[in-house]
């Protein structure tokens, strides 16, 4: 069964559906607490800040900065065999949430901690898109 391996594709479930539906429509949807106004990630039923059960999905700005990154050389999954070396990054969103993602539209050598980023969406399956980030130009 050694066909060309593809990258793994997430399978949305009930609680994550608003996130993936948003990504499909080009919107970064995150949970926001109506009680304490904090944003959180990835998903849960109670706010991790104040523990209230008033989390609502809201569109986030999609803007942030590069907290840190790595360039992966080791192939841990056959779907990434032709992708190495690829970057994995942590992005600090202005909403106060830190997301792991990939940075696109820039060479790995040019990545710099602190650089400004904005969200883009990449189709990874027939029905699934995921947020990635690219440098803000200008």
């Amino acid at each position: 069964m050694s066909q060309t391996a593809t990258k793994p594709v997430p399978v949305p479930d009930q609680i994550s559906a608003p996130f993936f539906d948003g990504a499909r429509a080009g919107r970064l949807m995150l949970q926001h607490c109506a009680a304490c106004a904090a944003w959180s990630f990835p998903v849960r039923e109670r706010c991790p800040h104040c523990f209230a059960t008033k989390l609502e999905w809201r569109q986030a700005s999609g803007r942030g900065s590069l907290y840190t990154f790595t360039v992966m050389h080791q192939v841990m999954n056959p779907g990434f065999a032709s992708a190495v070396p690829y970057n994995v990054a942590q992005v600090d969103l202005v909403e106060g949430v830190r997301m792991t993602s990939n940075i696109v539209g820039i060479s790995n050598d040019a990545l710099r901690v602190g650089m400004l980023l904005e969200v883009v969406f990449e189709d990874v399956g027939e029905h699934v898109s995921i947020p990635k980030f690219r440098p803000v130009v200008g």
Partner: protein
Amino acid sequence: MPNQSKGAIVGLGVTPMGKIYGRRAVDFAAEAIGLALDDAGLTKSDVDGLLINANIPGDMDVRSQMVLGFENLTLVNVMSAYGSTAGSMMQYACMAIREGLANVVVLVYADAPLSPTRGAGQSYAGPHRFPLGGMVGLRAAYGNFGANPEYAMAARRHMHLYGTTTEQFGIIAVGQRKWAQLSPWAQMRSPMTLEDHHASRFIAEPLRLLDCCLVSNGAVAVIVTSAERARDLRQPPVNVLGYAQCAPGDNLRTDRHPAVETGARKSGEIAFRMAGITRDDIGTCQLYDCYTYTVLVTLEDYGFCAKGEGGPFVADGKLGPGGALPTNTGGGQLSGYYMWAFTPLSEAVVQARGQGGERQVPRNDFVLVSGNGGILNYHSTMIMSRHASAS
């Protein structure tokens, strides 16, 4: 009861380690426990407590008792805070002994994830470990597999903030390899230079192969009892004078920085206070070293140097043989063997007893042991001594 023994380690068993195939984790566990009982001068029927460190494959479950043949245990549990668990187990064992719930408690870690067709990387981060359902599926979609990229990102953050260099990471690796060459238990005993470190392939930048721990098949068991009971047994007791945990929380908030400010800080403060000693009393450190970076950041958070100065602190080779702060004297997880926090715990017992042979450190009154689990999410500290009290 500050400054007093909370319990004593009276037996240690360490099996052969590494690419040893065809045996189950529980078989390694049985061997390690047998070695520890012989070491202590105890028999299986003396044991009334069994604490098992959950391993990643999950086969070291509570039913391991049946395979091992223990009867009428009054304390039994499987525990997991990942790589910090040995410290949690030691707390539970000592508290249970002092409450009279058990008298002789076996603590064991055993694992056998390696096979002829599955190496170190795949055993810890292969596709079998990455479900795709829901938000968890994002990790696989981004290629964020296992601990390597996460620790690489932590190390990169530290380098960005403080100017830490990969050469400084390499000096840690080289020092530990020198120690490993003095230990009959170590898996990696061939010489290693800084050039070898720099020439080793990248796993996840900035981490190279020689910045990363081994993965081992094998087991370690220790036997814990009261300080009073320990006096009559075969080996010099190793007293546990202090222990603590700290779990700082996840890193998915921009106001948290566990990647560069770990739970070692709070955990260490509590443990030192409990033991009634200070850092200056520590003759050797046995620190969790899943990566070279982990050693560096742990030393900072224990206060051996200021935050951000871990790189310059280690750069003179003070952690290696002959250095001012001998650390990971069995080679650690980088060059010795990878048994989660049972790696530093086992070497602490050897050093506190004064049985290190060629690698024995000169000052062994107080030994500092750290455990670290997840992505710097869980921390444990233990302070060991050949003395039953600090005063």
